[in-house]
C-alpha cells in the first residue's frame, strides 16, 4: 500500500467514529435497543419466544402512542387560564360619582331656541290625537300656525299610515299619498297589522335623491313624537356653542343642595363639571382632576357620599324628557361615564341608598383571550380622553363611520379632529344618513363589534339600591323649611318635596374582591408534565429523544446512504470492468474498509465489535490488567494507610 494511503487509513482508524457504528440497519437497531435508556425496547431484543416478543412490541408501541396522546393534550391545554379570587380588606379609593339631572337644560332658558319646534309639536299632537293643552296656552295659535312656515314638519314629515303601509296621510297637507321606499319599524319588527290604523311614523328622504326614502314607523305615538322631536332637538343643539350650552344647563349650585362625605361637609368645589351632550351639565364627585382621589376607610352609610339634589321639575322639557329625577353613575376616575347607557335613576321625594361592593377583574391578554390592555392595538381612534373601554371603542367607531359616510359628526358623541356636528342647514341629508348607518351598526354590518375588544382589566362597583321615603311625614315640615333656607339664599321659593332627591352612596364593606386570571400552565409545569408522561410510560427523557434522533435519523440515514453509495460504486465498477475487462476488486474492498471502520476487521461485524468501536484509545487498554484487581488493591491501600489512620486518631 502506498504510504499516503496508509496514513489516511491510520487517521481513519484513530479518528472518532463518525456516523453509524453498525454496518447494517438491523445491527444498528439491535445496538440501539440494547443500549438505549428507554425501557421497552430492550425487552423486545432480549425476550425469547415469538409471542413474548410480540407482546413487548405491542406494549412499547402503545406506550409511545400514549405518550404522544398525553403530550398533545398537554400542549393543547397549555393556553388555559385559571381564575383566582383574592379578597382584601383595606382602605378603598372612593369611585367617581357622576350626577346629572335627567333634564339636560332649563326649559325656561331654552325657550328661545325651541319655541318653534314646540309649537309645531303641539300642533302635530292636536291634529293626530286631538290633544290640546290647558288654559294657559289656549291662545295657541290657529292663526299663527298658518302664517308660520312649518319648517320642521316639512323637513321630516310625520305620517299616519294606512292600508298596510301603502298609503299615508301627510300631517301637514292632510293629503293621502303613496309611500315609497322601505319601511323600518323602529319599535319592534313584530308590528301586528291589526291595528295598523294607529301606526304613526316619519319619513326620511335622501336629499340628493328624493326617490330614496325610508319610512320609520312606531307602534305608539309617544315614541314617534319623542323620536321626531329628538331629531330636531339635536339639530338645533348642534348649532349652539358649548359655552352657551353649559350656561343653559344647571350649575352646581342649582343641582346640589347639601353634600356630606366621610362624615365631613363638602361643597361644589369637590365636584367637577362635565358636559354631556344629552344630559347637559353633570357633576362628578371625586373626579380626581386635581390629582387627589378621596378614599374611605370606613364602610357604612354615614361615611359615604350623601347629597340632596334639587330637581326643578317645573323647568323640565315636556317632550324631550318624560321622567323626572336624577341619574347617577359610579365609575372609575379614568373611565368615561356613559350615563345614558348605564346610569341609575334616582327618584324624587325619596332617599336612595346605594351600597357598593368593589370588584376588580383582570383577564389575561393575547394568547389566552382576546382582550386589550390599553386599547393601543385597536385601529379605532379613542375620541374620549379617558382610558379605553369597549363602549368608548364602539362609540368612537360609529362616530368615525358617521363622519366618513355622512360628512358630519353625530351630536351625542365627541367630535373627531376636523369634523363638526351635523345640523340640517349644512348637511340636509344627515338624518337619513344617520338612520341608515345606525341600522347598519345595530345589525353589526359596520364591523365595529368585530374590531372592538373588551378591556383586560376593569373595575366594577356592584350596587345594591334601595329606596326609603324622604322626608318622612314627621320631619317633612322642618326639613323643607331648612332646605329652603339653604337654597333660599339664592332663590326665594319654598321647596316642594318632589323637587328634592336624597342620595347616599357608600361602601357596604371595605372588602376589595380581585378576580384575576392566571396562566394555568407555565413552561416549567408543561415540561414537568412532559417529563412525567415520558418517564411514566417509557422511562424516557430528552436524552432518549436525542438518542432516537441520532439513531433513527442520522445513523440510519447514513447507513442507507452508504449502502446506496456502495451499490452505485459496484455498479460503476461492473460497468468499468465490462468495458476494460480488468477486475478492480481490491480497490473496492479497500474503499469499503475505509468508509466503514467496522469492516477493517476481517471478522464479521458483530454486536460486540460495534460496541467496542467507540472507544478507540489504545492507551486505556493496559489500564485494566491484573494489577488493578480490586482485591489486591484493597489490601495495599490498607496496609499503607493503617498506621496513618491510627496516628491520626491518637493525635
Amino acid at each position, binding site marked *: 500500500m502506498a504510504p499516503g494511503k496508509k496514513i489516511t487509513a491510520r487517521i481513519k482508524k484513530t479518528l*472518532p467514529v463518525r456516523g453509524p457504528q453498525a454496518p447494517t440497519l438491523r445491527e444498528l437497531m439491535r445496538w440501539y435497543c440494547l443500549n438505549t435508556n428507554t425501557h421497552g425496547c430492550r425487552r423486545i431484543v432480549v425476550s425469547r419466544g415469538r409471542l413474548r416478543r410480540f407482546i413487548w412490541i405491542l406494549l412499547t408501541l402503545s406506550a409511545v402512542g400514549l405518550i404522544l396522546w398525553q403530550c398533545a393534550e398537554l400542549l393543547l391545554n397549555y393556553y388555559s387560564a*385559571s*381564575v383566582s*379570587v*383574592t*379578597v382584601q*380588606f383595606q*382602605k378603598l379609593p372612593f369611585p367617581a360619582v357622576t350626577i346629572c339631572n335627567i333634564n339636560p337644560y332649563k326649559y325656561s332658558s331654552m325657550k328661545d331656541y325651541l319655541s318653534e319646534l314646540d309649537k309645531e309639536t303641539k300642533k302635530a299632537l292636536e291634529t293626530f290625537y286631538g290633544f290640546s293643552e290647558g288654559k294657559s296656552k289656549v291662545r295657541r295659535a290657529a292663526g299663527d300656525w298658518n302664517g308660520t312656515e312649518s319648517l320642521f314638519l316639512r323637513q321630516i314629515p310625520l305620517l299616519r299610515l294606512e292600508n298596510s303601509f301603502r298609503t299615508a296621510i301627510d300631517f301637514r297637507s292632510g293629503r293621502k299619498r303613496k309611500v315609497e321606499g322601505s319601511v323600518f319599524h323602529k319599535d319592534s319588527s313584530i308590528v301586528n297589522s291589526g291595528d295598523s290604523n294607529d301606526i304613526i311614523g316619519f319619513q326620511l328622504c335622501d336629499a340628493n335623491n328624493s326617490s330614496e326614502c325610508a319610512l320609520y314607523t312606531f307602534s305608539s305615538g309617544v315614541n314617534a313624537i319623542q323620536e321626531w322631536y329628538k331629531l330636531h332637538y339635536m339639530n338645533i343643539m348642534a348649532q349652539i356653542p358649548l359655552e352657551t350650552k353649559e350656561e343653559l344647563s344647571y350649575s352646581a349650585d342649582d343641582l346640589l343642595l*347639601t353634600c*356630606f362625605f366621610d*362624615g365631613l361637609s363638602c361643597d361644589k368645589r369637590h365636584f367637577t363639571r362635565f358636559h354631556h351632550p344629552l344630559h347637559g351639565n353633570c357633576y362628578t364627585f371625586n373626579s380626581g382632576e386635581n390629582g387627589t382621589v378621596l378614599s374611605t*376607610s370606613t*364602610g*357604612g352609610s*354615614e361615611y359615604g357620599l*350623601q347629597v340632596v339634589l334639587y330637581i326643578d321639575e317645573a323647568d323640565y322639557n315636556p317632550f324631550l324628557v318624560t321622567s323626572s329625577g336624577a341619574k347617577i353613575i359610579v365609575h372609575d376616575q379614568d373611565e368615561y361615564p356613559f350615563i345614558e347607557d348605564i346610569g341609575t335613576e334616582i327618584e324624587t321625594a325619596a*332617599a336612595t341608598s346605594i351600597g357598593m*361592593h368593589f370588584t376588580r377583574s383582570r383577564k389575561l391578554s393575547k394568547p389566552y383571550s382576546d382582550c386589550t390592555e390599553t386599547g393601543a392595538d385597536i385601529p379605532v381612534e379613542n375620541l374620549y380622553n379617558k382610558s379605553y373601554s369597549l363602549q368608548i371603542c364602539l362609540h368612537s367607531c360609529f362616530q368615525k363611520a358617521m363622519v366618513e359616510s355622512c360628512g358630519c359628526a353625530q351630536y351625542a358623541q365627541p367630535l373627531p379632529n376636523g369634523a363638526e356636528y351635523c345640523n340640517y342647514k349644512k348637511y340636509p341629508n344627515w338624518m337619513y344618513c344617520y338612520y341608515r348607518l345606525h341600522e347598519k351598526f345595530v345589525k353589526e354590518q359596520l364591523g365595529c363589534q368585530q374590531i372592538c375588544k373588551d378591556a383586560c382589566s376593569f373595575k366594577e362597583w*356592584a350596587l345594591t339600591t*334601595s*329606596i326609603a*321615603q*324622604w*322626608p*318622612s*311625614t*314627621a*320631619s317633612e315640615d322642618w*326639613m323643607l323649611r331648612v*332646605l329652603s*333656607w339653604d337654597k333660599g*339664599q*339664592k332663590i*326665594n321659593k319654598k321647596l316642594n318635596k318632589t323637587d328634592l332627591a*336624597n342620595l347616599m352612596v357608600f361602601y*357596604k*364593606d371595605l372588602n376589595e374582591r380581585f378576580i384575576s386570571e*392566571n396562566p394555568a400552565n*407555565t413552561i*416549567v409545569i408543561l415540561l*414537568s408534565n412532559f*417529563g*412525567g408522561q415520558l418517564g411514566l410510560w417509557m422511562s424516557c*427523557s430528552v*436524552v*432518549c429523544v436525542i*438518542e432516537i434522533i441520532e439513531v433513527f435519523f442520522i445513523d440510519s440515514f447514513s447507513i442507507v446512504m452508504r449502502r446506496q453509495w456502495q451499490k452505485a460504486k459496484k455498479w460503476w465498477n461492473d460497468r468499468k470492468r465490462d468495458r476494460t475487462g480488468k477486475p478492480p476488486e481490491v480497490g473496492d474492498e479497500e474503499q469499503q474498509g475505509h468508509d466503514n471502520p467496522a469492516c477493517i476487521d476481517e471478522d464479521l461485524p458483530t454486536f460486540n465489535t460495534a460496541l467496542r468501536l*467507540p472507544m478507540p484509545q489504545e492507551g486505556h487498554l493496559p489500564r485494566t490488567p491484573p494489577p488493578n484487581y480490586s482485591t489486591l*488493591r*484493597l489490601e*495495599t*491501600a*490498607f496496609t499503607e*494507610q*493503617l*498506621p496513618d*489512620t*491510627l*496516628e491520626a486518631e*491518637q493525635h
Partner: protein
Amino acid sequence: MSARGDASPVSPSSCSDLIFPLADTRMNLKKYFVRALHRLQKGPGYTYKELLVWYCDNTNTHGPKRIIKEGPKKKVMWFFLTLLFASLVFWQWGILINTYLSYDVTSSLSIGFKTMKFPAVTVCNANPFKYSEVKPLLKELDKLIEAALERILQPTHGDPISPLLLNGSNTTEGLDLELWNQIPLVLIDEQDKDNPVIVEIFETNQSAAGNQTAAPPAPTNVTSEEKKYKLAVKLCSHQGSNNCTYRNFTSAAQAVTEWYILQSTSILSKVPLQERIRMGYQAEDMILACLYGAEPCNYKNFTQIYHPDHGNCYIFNWGMDKEALNSSNPGAEFGLKLILDISQQDYIPYLSSAAGARLMLHQQKSFPFLKDQGIYAMAGTETSIGVLVDELERMGYPYSDCTMNGSDVPVKNLYSEYNTSYSIQACLRSCFQNHMTEICGCGHYMFPLPEGVTYCNNEDNPGWAYCYSSLRSSIRHRQICIDSCKETCNDTQYKMTISMADWPSEASEDWIFHILSYERDMSTNVTLDRNGIIKLNIYFQEYNYRTISESAATTIVWLLSSLGGQFGFWMGGSVLCLIEFGEIIIDSLWITIINIISWCKGLKQKRVRAQYPDMPPTVSELVEAHTNLGFQHEEASAATQGEALPPEPGTPPPNYDSLRVQPARNPGTDSDTESEEQRPAANHHEDASVRAE
C-alpha cells in the same frame, strides 16, 4: 517481629493509657474505625477517574452513560449536553420550589340550587323610638331646636344685617340654655371670606365674653347671592374653654340633624336599657303578618335585639336557640312574607328624616350591622327581594391573611356579649369603642360597652362630643383599626335583587287595612295607612348559591411530581439517582481522605529518608518522590512507590491489626513517661523500622 518489639516502647499509645480498661475501650474503638474504613473502602474505585467512569457507566441518569459510551467528539458533545440538562433541571427546580413557597391558591366556582339555610332576616324601623314615648325626654331639645330654627330662618326674609342678637330675652324664655350651651349651634357669616364672623344664635352670658367678634356693619347693598350664612356645631373640649372647633356644614339641614343626634345620644345614654326597649317599637305592633313558605308564623318567631341605631330590631331565623330553617324551593311562594307597620306619624322629627323599614339579610348567629349592609323598604310598597348566597371560602394562613374565628385578632370583640360570631364590622366597631374609652373616658352610645365603662353624656363628660368628633375624623385611628382587624376566611354575602311595586293597590286598600287593623288592635276602625305599611317578600332565586372556594394550587404532592417530572424530562432521573450521586460524593470524599493520608505519609517518608545519611536517596529518587507527591493517579503512585520502596508488597503482615495492637498495649503502661515532643520522632522510628524489615 523483633522490629515490632523494638518499636513497641515508642508505640503511638499515648500517655493517657494508664488504666487497662480504658486502654481496652480505646483499642476497641480503633478497631471499630478501622473496620468501618474497610467497609467504606469497598467503593467502586480508588481514583477519581475510576470512580467517575464507574458512576457514569452504572448510573440510572441518562446523560452520563453516553459520555462514556461515545467517541471523543461525541463525548464532548454529550458532556456539554449533560451539563446543560443538569443546569436546566436545577434552574427549573428553583422555579418550582419558589412557586410552591408562594402559596398560591386556585379558586373553584360553583353555582346552582341546593337546600340551604334561609338567611337570618333583621327588620327594624328606621326610627329608633316612638316619639310619643320619648317626648318627655326630648321635649327640651325640641323646643330649643324649634326656637333656633325660628331664628335662623328669620333673616332670609328680613333685613340683611343679622338680627339674631336682638330681642333675645323674650324668646329664650323657657328654654333650657344649659343644655344648649353644652353643644351650641352657631351661624357663620361668610360675607367676608377671610374673616368669617361667628354669630351665636342665643345670646347668653358666656358667649358675650368669648370669641364673638363684633359684627362689622355689612354693606347695605349686599345682594342676596353674596349673603351666605353657614350653620356650624361648636364643639369644645370642655365647657367655657377656648379650645373649640366649629364643624362646618354646607347645609343647615345636615347641621341640625348632626346636632340633634349628638344631643339626643347624650340624653338617651342615661336611660336604662329596659326603658329604651320599652320606648321602641314592640314586635306585635310592628310585625302584622308573617308567612314562611306555607307555614304561618308570627311575631313570636322573631328574636328581639336592641340596636342602638334603630331601637328594637327583630330577627327572624337567627338560629340562636332553635335550628335554622331550611329552604328547599326557589321562588316567592316558598320564601318569607312579612307585613310591617312603621307608623310614620310617631317618628322623631329631627332624628331620622328617611322613613321606612330597615332590613338586612345576614348569616345565622351574626350581628346585623344595619348601617353598613342594611337596605330600606319604602312605606306603601311591596318589596321583593330575590336572594343569592354568595359564599367565599378561603384558606387561612399561610395562603391568605384571614382569620377563622377572630381569636387571633388583637382587638377585644365587644359584640361577643350578643353571643354572635366574629365579623370585620364587629372588630372595627370594637376597636373604635376601645379607643374612645381610652381617650375620652367613656363609651359611645352606638356601640356596646367594655367592662366598667359608662356611656358618654353631657353632664359627666362635658367634652365628649369634641373628643368623639376629633376621634371620628382622625385618619390615624381608623388606620390602626383597619390594620389590626382581619377579615373572616369564610365570607357569606347575600346578593339581593330588589324590585318594588305599590302595595296595597287602590282597589284592595280598604279591606286590607281593615283586616290588619282589626287583627292588631281588635278595633273596627282603620288604624293603619299607606304611610306606614310595608310588604316584604324574601325568597331564594332560581340559583341560590354561588360558592367560590379556594384550594392550594401547589401541594407537596404537586411539588414532588413536578420536580420528578423535570428531572425525568431532562435526564430521566429519579430520587434514586440523587442517592447514587450522593454516594459518589461520599466515595470521592473518601478517596480524597485516602489521598491526603498517603500524601502525608509520602511527606514523612521523604523526611525519614532525609534523616538517614547512610541511605542517601539518589537524585532521581528525590525527583520521583517530589513529583509523585501530588499524584492522584493511583496506578502511577503505586508504581512509583513500588519503585522507590521495592519491598512494599511485603509489608502488610506486620501491619495487621492484631499484631500491632497487642504489643502496643503492654509496653504502653511504662511508656507514659515519654514526653509529647518525642513522639513524632518515635513515629519516624517506627516507620523506619518497618521499612527496614
